[in-house]
């Protein structure tokens, strides 16, 4: 479904800050219907990676293949059409404060020029799916963080995408709300057969939501595998330290000989 091949991304130098290499040769395959997690510490390049998939960031080199098409070659005119096939959910929700819940969810369809009737047909069933039937005509300012993220998820689904990209979607939420949002995402993945790429810095999110996981450090994927395999036998020091942070009883079965400093 998605194939990233040899993606490099360098942010050019700006006044006062030198050029920064954020991605150094990323290769990642995501099969249809799969939930792949990308985990790493702050600054590892996770957001840059996911933003390369819908070309919010243009890779410096490498190919982004979605559904067999190299989307880095798309023209300015075709890019919006491609993006409409992907949904994206954000850490800080990014809802329009001037629109009601319903109108926020309708926005992707409006942008695509859908008729009022088609919009209603798409949005109405999404409200109960994300548990917001009673908030239809409320504004984001009247919602809790968890409810806002449900709107964000419904909005990402409204144009009926095949792929949903999630960048730290639970990082602004408390643990109980996080669990609810993760199980909602899991449920949606099963029901709609969606492919998902999930960025996080928490192993608990990977454990609850993902089928596979890629661990990032310094702009590279340092370890990749099924969630079970990574949890039972983490090989890389970064993976081990991420696990040790959250699961206090974690002890690596095969300690690496040269752990990164501070790990």
């Amino acid at each position: 479904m998605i194939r990233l091949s040899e993606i490099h991304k360098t942010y050019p130098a700006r006044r006062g800050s030198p050029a920064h290499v954020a991605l150094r040769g990323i290769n990642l395959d995501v099969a249809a219907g799969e939930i792949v997690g990308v985990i790493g510490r702050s600054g590892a390049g996770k957001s840059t990676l996911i933003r390369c998939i819908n070309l919010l960031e243009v890779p410096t080199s490498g190919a982004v293949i979605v559904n067999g098409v190299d989307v880095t070659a798309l023209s300015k005119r075709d890019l919006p059409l491609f993006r409409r096939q992907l949904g994206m959910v954000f850490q800080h929700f990014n809802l329009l404060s001037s629109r009601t819940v319903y109108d926020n969810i309708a926005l992707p369809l409006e942008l695509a020029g859908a008729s009022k009737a088609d919009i209603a047909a798409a949005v109405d069933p999404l409200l109960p799916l994300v548990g917001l039937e009673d908030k239809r005509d409320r504004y984001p300012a009247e919602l809790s963080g968890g409810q806002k993220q449900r709107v964000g998820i419904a909005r990402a689904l409204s144009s009926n995408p095949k792929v949903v990209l999630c960048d730290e979607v639970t990082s602004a939420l408390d643990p109980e709300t996080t669990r609810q949002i993760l199980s909602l995402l899991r449920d949606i993945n099963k029901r709609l057969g969606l492919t998902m790429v999930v960025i996080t810095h928490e192993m608990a999110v990977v454990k609850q939501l993902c089928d596979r996981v890629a661990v990032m450090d310094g702009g590279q994927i340092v370890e990749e595998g099924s969630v079970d395999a990574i949890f039972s036998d983490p090989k890389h020091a970064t993976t081990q330290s991420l696990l040790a942070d959250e699961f206090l009883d974690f002890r690596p079965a095969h300690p690496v000989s040269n752990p990164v400093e501070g790990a």
Partner: protein
Amino acid sequence: MFATLAPILFQATLETLYMVAAALVIGTSFGLPLGVFLATSGRGELFESLIFQKTIGPIVNATRSVPFIILAVAIIPFTRMVVGTSIGTSAAIVPLTVAAIPFIARIIEGAVREVDGGLVEAAQAMGARPMQVVTKVLLPEALPGIIHGLTLTAVTLIGYSAMVGAVGAGGLGDLGIRYGYQRFRPDVMGAVVITLIVLVQMVQTSGDLLARKADKRNI
């Protein structure tokens, strides 16, 4: 006495309202796109155009730094070209509009820049084309700020319109100068001042009300 003053005052108020409304409407139709473009033409932004930033920005600033009364006199040839005369209420609309355009452009620019960049990005991720980002995200989200700014513009224009009144454009300023000052009628002067105060109050209050209605960020 009031009976003779009332119709003159009413007539002058209408002229002032006409000048201000016309300058506001024409000024917005030029100032709004200009302001949006000023806010979105920077490096890496929606309509990146560094030439525009480097040329129009300074022109806008230059126009804004000329005192209005100087501007009104300086562009008399242009005014004549547009309306055929440089005196009268309609002629006054030209300098008022010329002053309003950069004022409104900067206000719109500021309001649009206030919009969270995350929203622009979200819209682009949904497949919004650049113009859709403007019409569906930037303008609706900036609306409360835009209404505040246009209210401020209207109040400023009421003040400016009294100044062009002094150079023969009609309206409340003209009335105040010709009757109140030159014919020494303090009653007329008083009535003009009170009418101006009431006008400004009404504009400010309704602007605030509209802006609050449009603002859904604190409900």
